[in-house]
């Protein structure tokens, strides 16, 4: 059970980063950390004791397989995470060019 608590704790560190940090890049890092922790949490759920990767090789298939469904979900979630991070970084550069800083406090209405 400790493993799940640590994974959710990593998620909460991401939330801490997003809420508290003033720097745009730190916020983007916070969101990316949250994405990684959710992906890990999903895979932790699908793990079966001493199960191996779900690939059928030709020898006698008596081995226990890990659950392939969370792996399909997480593959999608990783690429979604990449998509959001790329868009966030593109906007962060434009804001940096317009304001000359990554800090939220200078940027007018980005509070909250």
């Amino acid at each position: 059970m400790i493993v799940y608590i640590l994974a959710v704790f990593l998620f909460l560190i991401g939330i801490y980063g997003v809420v508290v940090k003033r720097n745009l890049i730190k916020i983007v890092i916070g969101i990316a950390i949250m994405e990684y922790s959710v992906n890990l949490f999903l895979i932790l759920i699908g793990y079966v004791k001493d199960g191996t990767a779900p690939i059928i090789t030709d020898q006698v298939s008596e081995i226990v397989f890990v659950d392939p469904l969370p792996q399909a979900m997480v593959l999608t979630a990783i690429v979604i995470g990449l998509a959001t991070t790329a868009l966030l970084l593109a906007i962060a550069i434009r804001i940096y060019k317009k304001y000359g800083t990554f800090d939220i406090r200078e940027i007018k209405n980005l509070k909250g």
Partner: protein
Amino acid sequence: MELLIIVMLVLMIGGAIFSLEARDLLSAVIAYGIVGFGLVICFLFLGAPDLALVQIVVETITLIIMITVILNSTREEVKKGWKKTTAYAVLAFVFIGFFLYFFNRATDTLTVFGDHAMRMSKAYLQPGAAETGSANLVTGVIFDYRGYDTLGEATILFTAVIGVLTVLRLKGRK
């Protein structure tokens, strides 16, 4: 197995905390890399080689993009105004406390790590290979049982690229 995962998780949590607290943005991004590559190793332990492969390459490319962004701009983070940030920090810690408390209460009745009861994926494991014909069951699930997700998935990457191209164009209005 569980011990290895716990060690990796502690390492990743340390990397995450360091990356959020680091003054220099470049070291923050590098520390963020610890979390990403720690995740790759966790995937390998948990029997998910597909994901480890995708994660390691995607993580490298994200790091390259982040470093390109940072080298275009400043590397130090402005530190001022302690009053406001501590208020937010206290708020965040309260939220973290509540979340963990409720999470712990909610999940004590659930299956322990490792004995996961399969219901939907029973169908993917037993006859899986025969019906989709692919030896790699995960690819079978991705492209055949849940191909609709992957269609949405590829479109999301396409949307992100068009979004980046629109945001990074030079002149917005005529």
